[in-house]
């Protein structure tokens, strides 16, 4: 799976949890998940669990903590998929 496929699926999973719809309209790898999309921290747990289901991977809290942007997410998932 290439990075753009992963990003498409990441954004699809994030979409229902995004508070700032304007930021979502111009989403890119550099978009910050907490600051730009304003995904709330409890919803972020649902997002991470949905990533685990979608890509059949396990994501530790330490991994999540190191993620800031959509691009970080794509990179993390890409690494887990090998």
């Amino acid at each position, binding site marked *: 799976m290439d990075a753009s496929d992963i990003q498409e699926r990441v954004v699809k999973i994030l979409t229902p949890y995004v508070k700032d719809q304007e930021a979502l309209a111009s989403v890119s790898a550099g978009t910050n998940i*907490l600051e730009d999309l304003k995904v709330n921290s*409890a919803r972020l*747990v*649902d997002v991470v*669990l949905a990533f685990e289901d979608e890509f059949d991977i396990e994501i530790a*809290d*330490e991994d999540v*903590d190191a993620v800031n942007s959509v691009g970080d997410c794509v990179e993390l998932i890409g690494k887990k998929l090998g």
Partner: protein
Amino acid sequence: MIGNDVVDLAHPATRPGAQHPRFDARVFTGAERAALAQSPGAERLRWIFWAAKESAYKAARKLDSRTVWSPARFAVQLEPAGPRELTALCGVVRHGALAFSLRVESNAEKVHALAFCARSAPDALYCDGVESCAKGVKASAAVRAAARREIAAWLGAAPDAICIGRRGRIPTLHIAGLPGEAADLSLSHHGRFVAWACEIERAALRNAPRRAANHSARHGAMRRVERHAV
């Protein structure tokens, strides 16, 4: 150091069944899940535990910037209360070797948790508040305005004596006449509510020029403010 967290219980995200099926297993300890299984008020208790963890994380992160937001590693222990007495709870949140004192106020609408370093508590004064946030108003701005207004009123100072800044994403509080490290602030917003909590060293207030921070004995060690639009 202080941390707080507010949860709007009417928000679609907090409604029963709105979470991922593995949500509880991911964020709660075995003891917390057992308490949820036994509680007649499990839906509210779930967000009490969550808010407790997040408030302790906010305080812990200020003590050690390497702290990881791993909810299950913040273990919440509530003091025994009657099965329906979820309104005002005390307890402790443990994270590794650290222990945070916990106070939680809740009703059918919301939960507001406050966590502060058990060690520093005797030497500090606390003030916190929750307000409803008008529709269309940016929550980040609303919570800062509320905190500034209420902290000024608490101290008998002018609002412009209260300066809220940020260090990275963490809010900072400076009160005119007090040393920079004497006051700490935590902010939270969710759904219809904004909430803030502030901790001030007693000794710093004692030594402060009276006009800068006109604190007096009429203020208790802990003060709670609640304002809602009608």
